[in-house]
C-alpha cells in the first residue's frame, strides 16, 4: 500500500483507520474516507477494467464517474461506479468484461482489429442473410459489454424515497451554490442543496491556492474559504443539505429528482429524492474537457482535477514523473501544488500561446518547471500503462518525447449543463469561453458560477448571491433593486475568461478516443461524417459516442466542437447533443423505493391466521380464502348447509350518507327507487355507470330522517365517495357521505344453527317473528357493544350479518365462537362463500359480470325503477336503449352433463365461434352436481340449450352442459327465511 500524504488540511481520509476489502480474492486495505477507486489506486492497481469493444486497459481518469473506466462489480452488483462509491469494510470487488484479468486480458487482441469495425459496422454487416445475426449477436455479446447480471439476481440493500417541498432548490454545493443558498435563506426561504460529492465545497474545496478576498480577510486558501461557506450554510436552519446526492431529472413546475447514497450511519443504501421547488438554481460548475490524442485513455493519463484531488483529498501522489498537457490555469496551479508535494514534473505543455495567469508563470519559473506554450501531447506510449509521451507544437512542426509515468491531460473546462437542458433550457455556443452557455432558461430557473463562464473566485461567489436573490424574487421575497445593486458589483469583478477550443492534438486519430465508454475514436467520427451524418445528434447515434454510462460526460462537449471543425463549413453553428434524464446512472431499485406491502388487514386478520386460514390477496385486502388444504372446501360448505359458521366479511364497503339531499344523491346513483327504503328493513339495489353497465351492488337501510346506511362490494369501496360526489358535482346538494369501511367490521354468522348461537349473546328476542328475513336491527351486546344486525341470505341459509365497530370485532367474534362451541361452530373462508352463493345464483360483480355487462344482462332488471327520470339516474338512459338489443350476453345457470366435471372459471362457451364464457362453476356438494353460471349470447340463453365448453389444455376434447333454471339450491328461498 502506498504511503499517504498526511499533512494537508484538504484531506478527507483518516490514514489511521484501515478498511479491509477483497479484490480478486485477495485481501487489501484502504483507509476511511477512500472511495473504492482510490483504495485500489493506493494498492498499486492501475488497470481497473477493460473497455467495451476493444478490451483496452482502462484506469483512473476523472474522480467523479464521468466514464465507465472504473465501473466494477462490487458485492455482486455489476457496473458500480467505483469513483463515487465509498469503501466499506469487507467489500468484494471484481473486474468485469475481461477474459483472464484486467491486467492480462486474453481478449486484448481485439484492439488490433479496429480496422474491421468502422463506425456503425454492425448496422452494415452481419445482417445478410438475416440468419447470421442471431449467431453474430451471441459472439458480440460475449466479447463486448460491461458487467453481467444473472436473471435471478436479487438486488441487496435498503432503498428509501422522500418527496420534500422547498422554496429554492440548489443543484451543486460549490461556492456559487452555497452563496446562493445563503442569500435565499437569509431572505427567510427554505432552501435545499443537492451536492454530488459527499461534502460541500465544489471547486474550492480541494485547492490550497489563495482565495484573494478583500483586504480584511488576510491570507485565506480556497479550501479555508470553502469551509467557511460550509459553516455559514450549516448555521442557517432553513437550509437542508443533501450530500452525495446526484440530480438526475428535472420536470415541469420545477420538479427536481435525484438520489442520495447513504452513509454508514444512514438507514438506507440509496434514497430517491423528488423535490418540488418554487425556484431552482443550477450551480453545477465545470468538469474538464478531455484532451484527445493517441492513447489518451491509457492508464496513467488523467485529468487535472483527478491528479490534484488524488493528492489533496486522498493523500495519494498520482505518479512519480509527470508531464502535463493542459489548457487552463488550473493545470498550472495543480502542477505547482503537486510539485511541492513531491511529484517530479518533467514538462508542462500548454495549449495556450498566451493568457496565463502571470503570477502562476512566475511561480513555475521560480520552481524551474519547464512550460512550453502552444504545445500539446500527441501520443502516450506504453502497452499497459504510460511509459513516455510524444509531444508536439500545435501546428505539428516540432516534436519531442519525454519519459514519464503520469500524463495530466485536459483541453480545458466544460460547464455541466445537463440540468439546464433537461429542464428544457436552451444552450448557445459562446465563442469567447468556448462553452455552451444557457441562452433561454425556463421560468424560475437560474444558472450561476462557472455555468456563466466565470472563473475568478469572487466573481463565482457574487454570481451565486445574485442567483440566490433571483430565486428569492421568484418567491416574492426580494426586490429587483437589491439584485441590481449586486449585479453592478459583479460588473467590477473579472468576467468570463477566454477558453481553449482545441479538441485534438495533430494526429490521425485511429487510437484517439473521444468517448471511452463506447470506444469511439476520432476516426469513427470522421467515418460517420463521411457517410453523410452532419449533425452531432445523429453522429452520436451512429457511432454511439456518449451513449454509455457516463452519459456524455467525456464526449459531450468535444463531439459538437469536433464535428463543427471537421466539416469546415463557413457558417456552421455548433450544436450540443441533447441530454436526457437520468443524468447519472441510477439503480432501478432506487427508483422502485421502499416496496411497501400495501394491503389492508381486517380486524380479524391475526385470529384467522391462528385458526389456520390460508390467505390470498383480494383487491386491496388480504383475506382468508380457505381453512384447510382441501381447496374444494367440502367441510366448510357442508358445515354451513347443516350447522353454523362464521365468515369475516369486514372488507365490505360500508357508508353512511346523511343530510337534506341524501335521498336525491341516492336516487342519482342507485337504479332502484330509493324513496322506498324503510327504517328497519334492508333493500338490495345496484349502481350502474353511464353505459348502463353494472358496477356495484349492495344493501341499504334508513337509519333515521335523511340518514342512510349502505354497503358496497369490497372492490368498489375505495371509489364510492368519489363516484357519488362526481355524479352530483353540478347539483350543489347538501349531503355528507362517510366511509365506514375500516371503522366497522362485519361478521357473517350463517347456517341453520345461527339463531341459536346468536341468541346466547344478545338480550332480545331474535325469533323469526321478531327479527325476520330482510330486517335490520340495532342493539347492544353486553349493554355496551353497538351492533347493526341485518338478516340477509347471501349464502342461502339463515344468516345474520353483524356490523360491529372494528375495535370490538375481536370481542364479538370470541363471544360467538364461545357460544357456538356446543354446535361446533367453524370458520369459513371466501372460497366456501363463493360456492355457497353460486349454488344460490347470487352474483358477485366482477365475477358474473365484466366491463360491458349491463344490469339487464345479469338479470337484475327488477331493480331498475323507470319512473324517476327527474333523478337523472346514472345508467338509466343507456339501459332504456340497451333494452331493445336482444343480442347481448345473458347470465344463465347451467348443469354439466357429467358429474364431477365442473369447467374452470373463464372457460369458453363455443360452437363454431366463441359464444360466451363460464363465470363460476363448481362441483356442488349440496346438490351432488356440477353447476355454474355463464354469460352467453342471447340466443343460447333459453332453458335446455346445450352448451359446448372449451377449456384451456383440453386437447380438443369439449365438455358439455345444459342451461337450467336458477337458482340451483333452495329455489323458494325458504332456508334463508326460516
Amino acid at each position, binding site marked *: 500500500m502506498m504511503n499517504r500524504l498526511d499533512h494537508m488540511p484538504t484531506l478527507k481520509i483518516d490514514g489511521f483507520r484501515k478498511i479491509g476489502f477483497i479484490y480478486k480474492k485477495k485481501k487489501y486495505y484502504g483507509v476511511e474516507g477512500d472511495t473504492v477507486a482510490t483504495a485500489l489506486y493506493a494498492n498499486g492497481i492501475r488497470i481497473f477494467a477493460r473497455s467495451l469493444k476493444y478490451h483496452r486497459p482502462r484506469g483512473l481518469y476523472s474522480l467523479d464517474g464521468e466514464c465507465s473506466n472504473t465501473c466494477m462489480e462490487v458485492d455482486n452488483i455489476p457496473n458500480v461506479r467505483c469513483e463515487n462509491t465509498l469503501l466499506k469494510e469487507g467489500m468484494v470487488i471484481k473486474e468485469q468484461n475481461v477474459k483472464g484479468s484486467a491486467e492480462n486480458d486474453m481478449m486484448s487482441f481485439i484492439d488490433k482489429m479496429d480496422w474491421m469495425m468502422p463506425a456503425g459496422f454492425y448496422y452494415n454487416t452481419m445482417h445478410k442473410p438475416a440468419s447470421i445475426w442471431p449467431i453474430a449477436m451471441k459472439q458480440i455479446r460475449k466479447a463486448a459489454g460491461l458487467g453481467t447480471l444473472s436473471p435471478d439476481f436479487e438486488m441487496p440493500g435498503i432503498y428509501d424515497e422522500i*418527496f420534500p417541498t422547498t422554496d429554492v432548490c440548489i443543484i451543486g454545493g460549490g461556492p456559487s451554490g452555497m452563496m446562493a443558498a445563503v442569500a435565499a435563506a437569509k431572505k427567510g426561504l427554505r432552501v435545499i442543496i443537492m451536492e454530488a460529492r459527499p461534502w460541500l465545497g465544489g471547486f474550492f474545496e480541494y485547492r490550497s491556492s489563495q482565495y484573494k478576498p478583500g483586504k480584511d480577510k488576510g491570507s485565506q486558501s480556497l479550501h479555508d474559504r470553502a469551509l467557511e461557506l460550509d459553516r455559514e450554510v450549516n448555521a442557517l436552519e432553513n437550509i437542508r443539505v443533501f450530500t452525495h446526492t446526484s440530480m438526475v431529472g428535472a*420536470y*415541469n*413546475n420545477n*420538479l427536481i429528482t435525484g438520489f442520495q447514497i447513504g452513509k454508514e450511519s444512514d438507514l438506507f443504501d440509496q434514497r430517491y429524492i423528488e423535490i*418540488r421547488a418554487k425556484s431552482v438554481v443550477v450551480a453545477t460548475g465545470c468538469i474538464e474537457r478531455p484532451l484527445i490524442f493517441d492513447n489518451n485513455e491509457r492508464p496513467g493519463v488523467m485529468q487535472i482535477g483527478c491528479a490534484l484531488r488524488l493528492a489533496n483529498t486522498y493523500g495519494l501522489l498520482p505518479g512519480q514523473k509527470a508531464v502535463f498537457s493542459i489548457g487552463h490555469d488550473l493545470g498550472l496551479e495543480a502542477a505547482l501544488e503537486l510539485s511541492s508535494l513531491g511529484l517530479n514534473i518533467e514538462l508542462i505543455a500548454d495549449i495556450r500561446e498566451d493568457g496565463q495567469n502571470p503570477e502562476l508563470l512566475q511561480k513555475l519559473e521560480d520552481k524551474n518547471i519547464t512550460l512550453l506554450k502552444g504545445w500539446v501531447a500527441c501520443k502516450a506510449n506504453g502497452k499497459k500503462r504510460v511509459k513516455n509521451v510524444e509531444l508536439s507544437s500545435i501546428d505539428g512542426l516540432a516534436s519531442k518525447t519525454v519519459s514519464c509515468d503520469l500524463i495530466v491531460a485536459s483541453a480545458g473546462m466544460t460547464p455541466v449543463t445537463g440540468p439546464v437542458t433537461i429542464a428544457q433550457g436552451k444552450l448557445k455556443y459562446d465563442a469567447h469561453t468556448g462553452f455552451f452557455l444557457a441562452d433561454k432558461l425556463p421560468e424560475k430557473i437560474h444558472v450561476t458560477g462557472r455555468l456563466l463562464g466565470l472563473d475568478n473566485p469572487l466573481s463565482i461567489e457574487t454570481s451565486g448571491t445574485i442567483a440566490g436573490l433571483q430565486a428569492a424574487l421568484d418567491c416574492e421575497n426580494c426586490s429587483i433593486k437589491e439584485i441590481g445593486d449586486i449585479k453592478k458589483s459583479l460588473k467590477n469583478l473579472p468576467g468570463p475568461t477566454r477558453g481553449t477550443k482545441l479538441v485534438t492534438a495533430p494526429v490521425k486519430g485511429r487510437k484517439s478516443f473521444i468517448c471511452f465508454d463506447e470506444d469511439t475514436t476520432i476516426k469513427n467520427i470522421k467515418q460517420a461524417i463521411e457517410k453523410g451524418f452532419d449533425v452531432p445528434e445523429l453522429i452520436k447515434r451512429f457511432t454511439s459516442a456518449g451513449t454509455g454510462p457516463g452519459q456524455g460526460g467525456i464526449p459531450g462537449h468535444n463531439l459538437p466542437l469536433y464535428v463543427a471543425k471537421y466539416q469546415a463549413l463557413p457558417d456552421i453553428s455548433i450544436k450540443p447533443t441533447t441530454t436526457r434524464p437520468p443524468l447519472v446512472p441510477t439503480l432501478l431499485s432506487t427508483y422502485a423505493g421502499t416496496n411497501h406491502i400495501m394491503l389492508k388487514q381486517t380486524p380479524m386478520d391475526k385470529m384467522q391466521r391462528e385458526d389456520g386460514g390460508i390467505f390470498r390477496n383480494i383487491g386491496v385486502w388480504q383475506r382468508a380464502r380457505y381453512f384447510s388444504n382441501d381447496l374444494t372446501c367440502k367441510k366448510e360448505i357442508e358445515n354451513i348447509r347443516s350447522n353454523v359458521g362464521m365468515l369475516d366479511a369486514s372488507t365490505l364497503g360500508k357508508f353512511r350518507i346523511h343530510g337534506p339531499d341524501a335521498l336525491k344523491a341516492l336516487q342519482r346513483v342507485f337504479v332502484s327507487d330509493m324513496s322506498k327504503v324503510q327504517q328497519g328493513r334492508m333493500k338490495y339495489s345496484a349502481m350502474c355507470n*353511464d*353505459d348502463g353497465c353494472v358496477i356495484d351492488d349492495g344493501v341499504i337501510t334508513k337509519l333515521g330522517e335523511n340518514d342512510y346506511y349502505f354497503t358496497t362490494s369490497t372492490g368498489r369501496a375505495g371509489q364510492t*365517495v*368519489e363516484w357519488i*360526489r*362526481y355524479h352530483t*358535482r*353540478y*347539483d350543489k346538494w347538501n349531503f355528507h357521505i362517510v366511509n365506514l369501511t375500516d371503522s366497522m367490521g362485519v361478521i357473517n354468522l350463517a347456517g341453520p344453527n345461527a339463531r341459536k348461537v346468536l341468541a346466547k349473546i344478545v338480550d332480545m328476542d331474535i325469533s323469526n317473528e321478531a327479527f325476520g328475513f330482510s330486517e335490520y336491527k340495532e342493539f347492544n351486546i353486553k349493554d355496551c357493544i353497538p351492533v347493526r344486525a341485518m338478516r340477509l341470505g347471501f349464502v342461502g341459509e339463515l344468516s345474520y350479518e353483524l356490523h360491529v365497530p372494528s375495535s370490538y370485532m375481536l370481542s364479538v367474534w370470541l363471544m360467538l365462537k364461545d357460544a357456538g362451541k356446543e354446535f361446533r361452530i367453524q370458520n369459513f373462508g371466501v372460497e366456501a362463500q363463493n360456492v355457497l352463493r353460486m349454488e344460490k345464483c347470487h352474483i358477485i360483480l366482477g365475477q358474473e359480470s365484466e366491463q360491458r355487462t349491463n344490469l339487464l344482462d345479469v338479470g337484475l332488471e327488477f331493480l331498475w325503477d323507470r319512473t324517476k*327520470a327527474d333523478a*337523472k339516474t346514472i345508467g*338509466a*338512459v*343507456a339501459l332504456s*336503449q340497451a333494452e331493445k338489443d336482444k343480442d347481448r350476453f345473458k347470465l344463465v345457470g347451467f348443469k354439466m352433463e357429467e358429474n364431477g366435471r365442473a369447467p374452470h372459471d373463464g372457460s369458453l362457451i363455443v360452437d363454431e365461434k366463441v359464444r360466451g364464457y363460464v363465470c363460476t362453476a363448481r362441483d356442488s356438494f349440496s346438490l351432488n352436481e356440477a353447476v355454474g353460471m355463464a354469460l352467453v349470447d342471447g340466443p343460447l340463453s333459453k332453458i335446455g340449450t346445450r352448451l359446448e365448453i372449451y377449456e384451456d389444455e383440453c386437447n380438443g376434447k369439449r365438455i358439455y352442459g345444459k342451461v337450467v333454471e336458477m337458482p340451483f339450491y333452495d329455489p323458494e328461498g325458504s332456508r334463508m327465511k326460516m
Partner: protein
Amino acid sequence: MALTITCPVCGKRNGYEFKYGGEEKGPRPEEKDLNPQAWCEYVHMNKCVAGVQEEWWFHKDGCGSWFTILRDTTTNLEQEKKEAKK
C-alpha cells in the same frame, strides 16, 4: 408526474394526489326526449384540445372534493383561472 394542481380547499399540491375526471361538459342533460346520439356525445365525446381546457379533478389523497382547473394540455401546466378566463 410533474403536474401540480391547485385544489380550492387544500391549495397547490402534487399531481399524484388527484384523479382526473374528464373535460368540463356541463351538467347531465334532461332525459326527456334525449336521443341516443346526443346522449352518446355527452358521455363519450371529448374535444381533446391542444391548448387550455377546463377539466375536472378529484382530490383523492386529500379533501375529497371535485373541482375544475384550467390546464394547458401542450405544456401540462395549470393556468390561473382569472387570467385564462379573460
